[in-house]
């Protein structure tokens, strides 16, 4: 019977939001096959972080707690992940699509001799087996992929799986797993971490993203976008053109060469919709575009369009939203 193992790669921080998403996806796959959901929580000081994970779908929680897991190091996390995979005996392993999960997946897959699919947005369980769905060619096409190996590793794009509504009556068995992590064998050292995080919600986690592009004409209008994002409980994004022009930092860039996001609402303001930008928003549930050029490709993917100079609309939009929030 299928056992699905989801991973939480926590470092010394809180549980990533992706943990609940992976549990939701794992639950759906396991339930279709009458299987079980295991969750491996890797990090330092993990004990306090696992409280609500049974309610969110885990049947068994494997804890690998080590001071050597306080910062992400591939050698340390590989050892921990292998130990958890061994203890679980799972055949499907789900990793988060953040920088840690993407780094770990090929190493883990290699050592487990498992086929690997990355950047998945859906898991399709059927009696014939499990298929992985991922966008390719910058989101212009989708692929359904079957993995032939007994064990399979998948990296799930963030915000592509739905968490389950918590069921407080669910219980999980908690198991401490020992991993042989020997820092003297590490082949590289993490010597520093420089935070680039802007204040507020992470772009990848934001339910609402307000993005600006070349059409804004300069850095100034981004202040209005920031206010709108704040009012909507979201984050500010930008096209490559706006980043290349130096109007906003690269950490804001949405697209194939920036962040790939899947908010509930995406507001594209003054963004024409180059292919490489659209690649970053294929997961957005509702796309609203404001652009003065009605021929702009962004309207080809938008659900709601406003053909107008943003300068005529944005101040009123802000006013309306302020009033609604007041």
């Amino acid at each position, binding site marked *: 019977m299928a056992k699905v193992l989801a991973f939480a790669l926590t470092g010394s921080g809180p549980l990533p939001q992706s943990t609940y998403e992976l549990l939701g996806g794992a639950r759906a796959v396991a339930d279709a096959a009458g299987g079980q959901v295991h969750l491996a929580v890797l990090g330092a000081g993990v004990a306090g972080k696992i409280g609500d994970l049974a309610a969110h779908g885990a049947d068994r929680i494997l804890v690998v707690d080590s001071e050597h897991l306080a910062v992400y190091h591939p050698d340390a996390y590989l050892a921990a992940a292998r130990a958890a995979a061994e203890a679980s005996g799972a055949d499907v392993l789900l990793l988060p699509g953040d920088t840690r999960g993407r780094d770990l997946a090929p190493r883990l897959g290699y050592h487990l001799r498992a086929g690997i699919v990355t950047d998945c947005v859906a898991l399709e369980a059927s009696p014939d087996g499990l298929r992985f769905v991922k966008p390719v060619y910058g989101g212009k096409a989708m*692929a359904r992929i079957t993995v032939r190996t007994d064990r399979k590793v998948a990296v799930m794009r963030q915000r592509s799986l739905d968490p389950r509504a918590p069921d407080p009556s669910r219980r999980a068995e908690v198991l401490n797993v020992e991993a042989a992590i020997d820092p003297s064998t590490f082949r590289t050292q993490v010597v520093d971490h420089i935070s680039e995080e802007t204040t507020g919600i992470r772009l990848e986690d934001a339910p609402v993203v307000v993005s600006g592009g070349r059409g804004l004409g300069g850095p100034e209008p981004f202040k209005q976008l920031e206010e709108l994002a704040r009012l909507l409980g979201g984050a500010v994004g930008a096209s490559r053109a706006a980043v290349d022009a130096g109007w906003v930092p690269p950490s804001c860039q949405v697209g194939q060469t920036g962040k790939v996001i899947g908010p509930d609402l995406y507001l594209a303001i003054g963004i024409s919709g180059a292919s490489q930008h659209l690649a970053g928003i294929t997961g957005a549930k509702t796309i609203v575009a404001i652009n003065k050029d009605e021929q702009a*490709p962004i309207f080809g993917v938008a659900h709601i369009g406003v053909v107008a100079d943003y300068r005529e*609309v944005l101040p009123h939009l802000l006013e309306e939203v302020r009033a609604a929030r007041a």
Partner: protein
Amino acid sequence: MHIVVCIKQILDPEIPPARFQVDPSARQAVRGSAGLVISPFDENALELGLQLKEKHPGTRLTAVTMGDEEAVEALRKALALGADQVVLAADPAFNGLDSYGTARVLARCIEKLGGADLVLFGRQAGDWDHGLVGSLAAEELAIPCVTLVREIQMDGDGVRLVREGEGGVDVIAGRLPLAATVTNADSNQIRFPKVRDMMLARGKPITRWSAQDLGLDPADLEPTARAAEIDELFVPDRTSSCQFIDGEDGAEKARKLVQKLRELKLL
């Protein structure tokens, strides 16, 4: 120092969605009139390699690709930009290989070149976006791999790398030999080749290696080598009829937009 940069030739990713088509039976994109280019992150890797070569005299840079005869164009561009040597791994047995198989072929090329001190890859190819080959090839070569790298500084056989981490960048220290998958940064935007260098590149030799040259028999490319199989490739239906908001002026459009978002429970 010997730097190897692994590059992949792909269909130009800038082709607009409206003109993009797939051949569902071949499970491939239809090329149509679109050009072939070096995958964008591989260009970042190549640029980073070229800068290191310039900074450290005596460094040799080899560009390697796996592909068919058309991929020679990608190698010629690498030569024009400053690669000392280029290798094309081509064999019918390489068709349809997944990331494991590709990584094995590239690793054998690097071994046949006598090894490398630094092996650079793009962080993922701009067609299938797997992001696996660099890390898997490093495993094949039994060397460490640092992913999502923006910058590299060398000091003897010591290396410092700046990589994208969660919520910021990590600074990594390592020793050669080492592999890195490179992401885009201001500092590694690909340079433009000079016309004269493009001309000269036409006359330079291309090393071609087959599976046999690399000591690979078909069994080496199985079973994990074809572990991930593409069952289906399709263009999602995005004939999303965009609903346009009209109005006399910006104020009315903004009001109607907010109303619409409320109806959709997005506000």
